[in-house]
């Protein structure tokens, strides 16, 4: 039934290895449970790449269509299913990002969604500074050219190693390291520039 949501208790107790054989056997309910387990991560990745909720939703759907079509290619020996799925999602997001680069440059993006988790017993002023910093960093991230933005997303938001990024983007390891450092520098200079502006306005 289309509208039926998989039971939360079932989701909490089932694992990928429980669901995968059933999914391969054509069990629709098992497939929906599997998607439910991984949607949040895939959507998070899609949003980092696109910067828009509607586009990230479309991308998430495309990723799961692709995963469903290629489910027979996954082997347990390749590693955890979640890692395989995220690799498929990442590659799809990279392709999507490259394809839509020009279109993206013309359109507006959603309001800032990236926020940092508040520290415990944080002072209200410190909280505001943190939020302001997060906004600046996220805005700066969107403004980066793709050759800097992609490796930075994969490294600092997705937690991939330099080797994995080099493989995903098909660029040499040294180039990846250099681009990530340059991307961080760009964001740091933006943050400093903004602080200097504020300091100049206050004085």
């Amino acid at each position: 039934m289309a509208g039926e949501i998989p039971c939360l208790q079932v989701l909490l107790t089932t694992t990928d290895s429980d669901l995968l054989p059933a999914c391969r056997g054509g069990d629709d309910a098992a497939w929906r449970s599997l998607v439910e387990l991984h949607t949040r991560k895939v959507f998070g990745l899609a949003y980092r790449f696109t910067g828009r909720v509607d586009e990230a939703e479309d991308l998430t759907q495309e990723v799961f269509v692709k995963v469903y079509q290629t489910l027979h290619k996954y082997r347990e020996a390749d590693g955890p299913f979640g890692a395989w799925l995220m690799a498929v999602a990442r590659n799809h997001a990279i392709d999507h990002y490259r394809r839509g680069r020009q279109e993206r440059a013309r359109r507006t993006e959603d309001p800032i969604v990236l926020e940092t988790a508040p520290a415990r017993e944080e002072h209200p002023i410190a909280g505001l500074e943190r939020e302001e910093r997060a906004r600046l960093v996220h805005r700066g991230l969107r403004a980066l050219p793709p050759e800097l933005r992609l490796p930075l997303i994969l490294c600092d938001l997705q937690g991939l190693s330099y080797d994995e990024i080099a493989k995903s983007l098909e660029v040499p390891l040294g180039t990846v390291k250099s681009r990530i450092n340059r991307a961080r520098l760009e964001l740091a200079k933006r943050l400093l520039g903004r602080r200097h502006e504020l300091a100049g306005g206050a004085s």
Partner: protein
Amino acid sequence: MDCHRAEELLSDRLFGSLHPILAAELEAHLAGCEACRQLAEAFAEVVAALHSAPELDAPVGLAERAALAALARPRTIEIRPAFVLPHWLNAAAAGLALIALGATLALVGPERGARAAQRLVGQTVTAGSGLMERKDRLLEDVRVLGVVLSTAFEGRIERVNERVNDYKRLLERRKATPQPEPKQGSETRPPGVQMAAAFRTGAGSGS
């Protein structure tokens, strides 16, 4: 160390992957350069902000929509053979077959090889012609039987007897006619057999 070089090393400094000598040089530069020191602090803040970005919640109903979108597409199922020979074994088998063919041709000579191939083709055509003739006789039997049955249903017993007698005569004629012999030069062979014989004869005269 200049400012440009110091900027290049900020990631390695942050994650502690600098060589101790290079790290000491960088720290000495930062201690003396206010601009680079501020940049290094902002650099650390940026990385911290990126690393602490929380995972976003997916919109309500997205999982269901994504699952249904996938189910709506026909899935391609890969059918793998139960046993697959390795590529190198296939290549080796193909190589051996070529060597064997070459050796056979070298031993028997190209003319004998060609004659053997022609004989094989001729025998195949003869066997096919025999099968076609048997099929024609079977069809004839069925047709006669159909006439006999339809006459019986009509209740005309005298016609049934006539048809049965016709069938008996047909069988006697068949007995009098010899079965096709797949031998060379037979005049009573069916057209397919004669064609095969002509093929062989032509091949023989050509060699």
